[in-house]
């Protein structure tokens, strides 16, 4: 190391490597919590770059953004400031699975985030490639850059996305490269390996970008946004924008024929790529091969921003050669004359095996070294941001000697995400889905603030203005629920007539407003005439109340399950436990437990290969130890 250091570039509490969605959240959290923070990026023009699809949110992902917001993160605010279209997904289903999704102006998103970072006290932003981490005595010491600059630091957060040893594949052509035409980071991987960190190789892909003027948009289905825009952030009062539409078209048999004829030219099908890609994000050739009986596939055409003519062709990612891409794109209705501006490509990159991490996102083997985002085997901007935020908060808490934040599976989607990654690992880039959460009815996007604001405040990231606004909302909510429970409606004739007008059964005896609201055909608004003394409440408080009432039985059921879940979750396992000492554990369980080092019996029970009986053995052993200790004292 010494011989490579050309100059001492500075002293920091925390250095964040990478300024993508994870890096930005990590750095902002660290700086805002009072640490002198440096964020390094390969290119200042690629800060918070949306390298793939031009949207934020979606099912599960929208939930993540709301949670990031509640904890004091930045993503929701930037999204509100950069969106060009808004949609609430799943409105035909219940509120637990309503999901916010925005089309974002990519350039605007980048500019907005860059400005926030530039304006943050305590935070320095530098363009430099980190090539080595300096570890001494199992503890983080510094970071070396390509130009020989050495930054001394107490903690490092690695958020390298898909840059590590990035390799681009387009048909028979492949070369070293980062995302979206940027350079790859070729050196850092070796430094991680030298420090005993296990790497794996993942891949992901993105479709081509096509010039808007070359598309016959009039031949496609128009996809407009909702007239009513719900902001992502609790702090945003409203979003007032002219929305931009998206478009929908379909592939056809001739597209599929072109793909089949050229399959051997796809590096994946030709066997030149051995890395694992995500199943939920298949290339078009994958779709055609695996779902051969489908005669057409959806293609969404989405603007990349207001000031650009680049259009993102969702559903059409591919590793076929550039000239084949043009052929197959042009076989689609509306794209007959299309002109490709950037070809589709697949990128292969190094990531770490996330089971090396604790649930705090610190790696088990090196003190004060944290990892967040795609480098942990996840996929998606929101997943990255969620991890970045937690890593940033925890690095600070650790340096301050405070207890770090571990959100569990009953508290947040972020908890589910991190727990899945570090406990089970992943064989493909991990995407959040609501079906991964056990307690979906409790983990709603509409109550993310109620679930997490106080945690963010306790950690020191949520500021007084947000906390004040939150407490006032919470207070109004609680008061209103009490009022509804205390307001009795009697079966007077005029009331029953009114109920019958609403297709609701007339009352036989007195009932509270709260109980009345349980009826599926009624809602808060429809009862206005029966409830003249109601306070003037914010729309989202009303939604909140309705959701709570309508779901009550199911929520109660989930709370009961959560109670059971917490019992094991709260049984903490000391990290220095030697599993080889434990008689009765099966070999497989012993190996898995020694590798994962679960922090609680709950986490241990989720490791694949650890059976309920192993957990029993473990529990008895821990109790035994505890007693021995007590009798010693």
């Amino acid at each position, binding site marked *: 190391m010494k011989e490579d250091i050309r100059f001492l570039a500075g002293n920091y509490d925390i250095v964040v490597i990478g300024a993508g969605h994870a890096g930005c959240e990590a750095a902002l959290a660290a700086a805002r919590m009072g640490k002198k923070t440096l964020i390094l990026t390969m290119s200042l023009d690629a800060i918070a770059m949306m390298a793939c699809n031009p949207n934020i949110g979606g099912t599960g992902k929208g939930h993540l953004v709301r949670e990031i917001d509640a904890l004091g993160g930045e993503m929701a605010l930037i999204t509100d400031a950069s969106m060009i279209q808004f949609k609430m997904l799943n409105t035909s289903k*219940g509120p637990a699975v309503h*999901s916010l999704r925005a089309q974002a102006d990519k350039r605007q998103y980048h500019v907005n985030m860059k400005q926030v970072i530039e304006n943050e006290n305590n935070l320095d932003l530098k363009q430099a490639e980190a090539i080595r981490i300096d570890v001494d005595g199992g503890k983080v010491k510094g970071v070396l850059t390509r130009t020989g600059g050495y930054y001394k630091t107490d903690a490092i957060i690695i958020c390298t996305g898909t840059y590590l040893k990035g390799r681009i594949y387009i048909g028979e052509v492949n070369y070293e490269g980062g995302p979206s035409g940027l350079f790859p980071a070729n050196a850092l991987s070796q430094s991680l390996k030298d420090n005993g960190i296990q790497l794996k190789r993942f891949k992901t892909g993105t479709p081509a970008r096509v010039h808007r003027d070359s598309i016959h948009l009039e031949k496609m289905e128009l996809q407009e946004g909702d007239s009513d825009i719900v902001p992502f952030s609790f702090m945003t009062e409203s979003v007032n924008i002219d929305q931009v539409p998206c478009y929908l078209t379909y592939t056809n048999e001739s597209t599929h024929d072109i793909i089949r004829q050229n399959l051997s030219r796809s590096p994946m099908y030709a066997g030149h790529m051995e890395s694992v890609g995500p199943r939920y994000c298949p290339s078009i050739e994958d779709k055609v091969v695996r779902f051969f009986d489908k005669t057409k596939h959806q293609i969404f055409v989405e603007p990349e921003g207001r000031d650009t003519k680049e259009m993102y062709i969702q559903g059409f990612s591919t590793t076929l050669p550039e000239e084949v891409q043009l052929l197959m794109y042009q076989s689609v209705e509306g794209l007959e004359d299309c002109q490709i501006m950037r070809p589709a490509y697949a990128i292969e990159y190094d990531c770490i095996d996330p089971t090396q991490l604790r649930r705090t996102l610190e790696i088990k083997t090196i003190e004060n070294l944290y990892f967040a985002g795609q480098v942990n085997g996840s996929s998606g901007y929101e997943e990255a941001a969620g991890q970045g935020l937690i890593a940033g908060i925890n690095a600070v808490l650790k340096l301050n000697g405070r207890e770090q934040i571990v959100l569990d599976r009953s508290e947040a989607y972020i908890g589910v995400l991190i727990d899945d990654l570090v406990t089970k690992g992943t064989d493909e880039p991990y995407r959040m889905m609501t079906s991964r959460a056990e307690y979906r009815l409790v983990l709603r996007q509409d109550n993310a603030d109620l679930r997490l604001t106080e945690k963010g405040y306790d950690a020191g990231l949520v500021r007084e203005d947000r906390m004040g606004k939150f407490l006032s909302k919470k207070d109004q909510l609680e008061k209103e629920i009490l009022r509804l429970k205390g307001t009795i409606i009697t079966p007077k004739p005029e009331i029953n007539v009114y109920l019958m007008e609403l297709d609701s059964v007339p009352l036989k005896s007195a009932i509270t407003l709260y109980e009345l609201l349980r009826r599926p055909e009624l809602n808060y608004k429809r009862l206005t005439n029966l409830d003249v003394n109601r306070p003037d409440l914010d729309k989202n408080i009303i939604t909140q109340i309705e959701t709570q009432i309508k779901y009550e039985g199911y929520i109660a059921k989930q709370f009961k399950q959560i109670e059971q879940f917490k019992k094991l979750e709260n049984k903490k396992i000391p990290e220095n436990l030697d599993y080889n000492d434990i008689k009765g554990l099966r070999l497989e369980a012993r190996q898995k437990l020694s590798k994962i080092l679960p922090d609680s019996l709950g986490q241990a029970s989720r490791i694949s290969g650890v059976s309920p009986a192993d957990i029993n053995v473990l529990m008895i052993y821990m109790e035994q130890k505890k007693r021995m200790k007590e009798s010693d004292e």
Partner: protein
Amino acid sequence: MNIGTIAAAATSPGIAGIGIVRVSGNKSLEIVTNIFKSKNGKSLAELAYRKMYYGWIIDPENEKVIDEVLVVYMKAPDTYTREDIVEINCHGGIISVEKILRLLLDQGARLAERGEFTKRAFLNGRIDLTQAEAVMDLVSAKTKNSFELSLHQLEGRLSREIETIRQNLMDLIAQIEVNIDFPEYDEEEMTMDDILSISREIAQKIEKLVQSSETGIIYKEGLKTLILGKPNVGKSSLMNYLLNENRAIVTEIPGTTRDTIEEFVNLAGVPLKIIDTAGIRNTEDIVEKIGVQKALEKIEEADLILMVFDASKELEVEDLMIIDHIKGKNVFYLLNKTDLKEMISFDRLEYVKKELIRISIMNNEGLEEIEKKVRKEFLSGKLNIDNDTIVSNIRHKNLLVKAKQSIYDVIASVENGLTLECVEVDIMDTLAYLGEITGASVKEDLMDKIFSEFCIGK
């Protein structure tokens, strides 16, 4: 993990004079109080603890007496597990114990895992470290075998049947999850009508399995068989024939206070539990002896009735009376004493005549016909024991009952207009209960299914 009130048989399932069922946990007093009626009329909660009381275990659903018992309540912490414990001393053998156990589970107890009483004893500080080591061995021994157990303990057919139901549910859930997680894709939307019809089908299948558990438990406990006939037709000879040589599985289990003697015989591979043999032994007419009402109860209870006629005598009122009482039951009509001059005639009883099995117990003739008929009726006939999937394990039955409840919740939720994600919760529960029987986990399977069967993603 130390959750809930647990119950298990404390005595081994073999043949014994008494059986003990033990209940431990904070609800044990409450649970047993619900099903115990003491002789002095006081409820168990009102009685002194650490004293043994005489009384009856009553099924609270229908007030039926299950068994007469001695019950003792031991108050925490001075008990084996350091929790409240109730012990029920009942009649030995498996029947009484299992019945009581089932009642306890209905009342909210959970079947104890192997070693769980001891485990609780340890966790609650009752036993020391060396003893705890033994517990760990016990628990881990279970681990080593658990895989094998799940394979062998289950009837292959049962796990196949449950697997089919699970697959149906899995298809349903995967579709729902795709609809929820990928709403913008043109995958088919699962309608509430679809969910309703699939759930109903599944409910039916589960219902059938639950019913079969009754049959299965009959199979395990024996077909309750009643031998009927007027005096002196050869009932006791038949009994003796059935009991001879290797057929007897269990000879007497005399109840301590009852005069009923139960006999188990293995006939053509079907276990028969011959009930109310006392009357038969004395060759007294059961109708006369215990009165019509009692006799009817016995008939009601029986799975199989062997009705014996005397070929050498004409049909009498008594015969007709019995025939009348056993209408609609599973009856084998046996015409005995066919070695003598035949006087009997069934002219007005065509259906009996058609079914008659002619035997002579004296000359050992025709008896193999009974075996044949048993085989025909019970191994491939009406009850179809061999072809239907049979649940003969209480744990499995309980999980099936829970699964059934959950799938009915699904149906109710759909009918009440609840949304997809609520309905899904109950489907998930159903799946989880079935998974507990076969040991399959839901999450991973589901992800695989979603990705392998639906074309989604950018």
